[in-house]
C-alpha cells in the first residue's frame, strides 16, 4: 500500500473536499444535473 505521503494531489484535494462536506453535514442538494454543468459545489469554488 502506498503511504499517504505519496498521495496524488488530485486525491488529496478530493479527500479534503469530502471531509469538509462531512464536517459541514452538507446534503447532496443540487449535487447533480442531467445536462449542464453543476452549480454550487463546483461553481462556488471559482
Amino acid at each position, binding site marked *: 500500500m502506498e503511504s499517504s505521503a*505519496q498521495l496524488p494531489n488530485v486525491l488529496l484535494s478530493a479527500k479534503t473536499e469530502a471531509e469538509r462536506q462531512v464536517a459541514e453535514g452538507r446534503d447532496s442538494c443540487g449535487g447533480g*444535473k*442531467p445536462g*449542464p454543468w453543476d452549480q454550487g459545489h*463546483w461553481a462556488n469554488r471559482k
Partner: protein
Amino acid sequence: MGFPISTPIVKPVDGLCNLSCTYCYTAGLKSSADKKYMSEQTLASVIDFFCYDKKYTEFIWHGGEPLLASIGFYHKVVEYQRTWRNRGVKIVNFVQTNATLVTEKWAQFFSDNEFLVGVSIDGHEETHNCNRHYSSNTGSFADTMRGVKLLREAGVFNGAICGISKSNVSSPREVLDFFISQGIKKLKFARIKDIGLCKDVSDISISFAQYIDFLISVFDLWIEYDDPKIEVRDIQSVVNILMGGTLRECIYMGQCDQFVTVYRDGTIYACDSLPKDESLYFGNVFNDPTKVRNNDRLKASQEIARVRHALCQSCNWYSVCKSGCAKDHYMKLDSSSPIPEHCRELKRYFKHISTKLGHYGLV
C-alpha cells in the same frame, strides 16, 4: 437533495436548433417547434412556479439551442426573476449551448446577470465536426470555439460536455489532452446512444461497456496527470462518494424527480433524458404547484423507483449507485430490475476506482 419537481430544465424553443447534430436526441421535437418561442405569459408562470415556495432555486436553460429564444427573452427571464430575488429567493441560471451564436453582447449579458454557461464540445476539430455540424454538414467547431473564447473572457464559461461515440471512445488520452490544451478542465462526458428520439445513431453509438472502458481510462489519466483543476464530473462524484462525501451526480442520487423538463408551452415532464411519454407528464406551469407535485403519474414513477431501490439494496455497491439512472440502466420505464450488463459494468467501474483509492488507504 431537492424536493420533487423543483429544478426545471427549460426549453424555451423546444428542440429548435441551428445545428443538425448526428446524434441529437431532441430531433423529434424539432419539427414541431415551428420556430415559435415560449410566450412571455408562459415564461412568467415558469418563473413563478419554480420560485414561489423556495429560498433557493436553479433554472437550466436548454434545448435544442436555447439562445435561439433571443437575448430579449433572457432579459425577460431576469426581469421576472427580479421580483423573487427582491423577496429573498436566491436564483442561479445555467445555460447549455452549442456556443455558435454567442457574441460579445451575449457574453456581456451572461456576465452582467451571473449566468453560468456550459458548452457542448466533442473534442478536437475533426472529431467534433464528425457529429456536430450545420444542416449543410459544415462543421461547427470554429464557431463553437469562438463562442467559448468570448464566454471565457466574460468569466462565465462553466465547462464542457463531450459526447463519446465511436469517433473518440478509443482515444481517451487524446480527448483529455485536447481539452487540457484549450484550458478546459471542467468536463462531463456523455455516452452517445439511441434513447428513442434520435435519428439512426447505430453507426456512431457505443455500448455501455465501451463507455465504462473510456471512463476507467480517463480516471487513470486523471491520477497520472495529477492536476486538481481537472474535474471530470462522473469521476469526481464516484471518488467523493467512496470517500464518504455527498457530491452526487444526478445518476447516483437514487431519485430524479427533482429535475423536470418544461417545454415551450409550459408543460412539465420528467427529465428530458427520458422519453417525452404521457406517463411522465406531470402537469403545466399554470397549475397549482402543490397539485402538480402530488400528481398520480409522479407518484407512480416514485413507486417504480422505490421498487428498484428495494431490489438493489443488497448489492455491495448500492451506497454508490443508488440503483442507477432511470434512463440508462433499465430496459423500460417501468422495469424493476436493471439491465444486467449495465450492473456488471458499473460494478467494474466502481471497483476500479475503489481499488485505486484503497492503495492509498482512502477507502
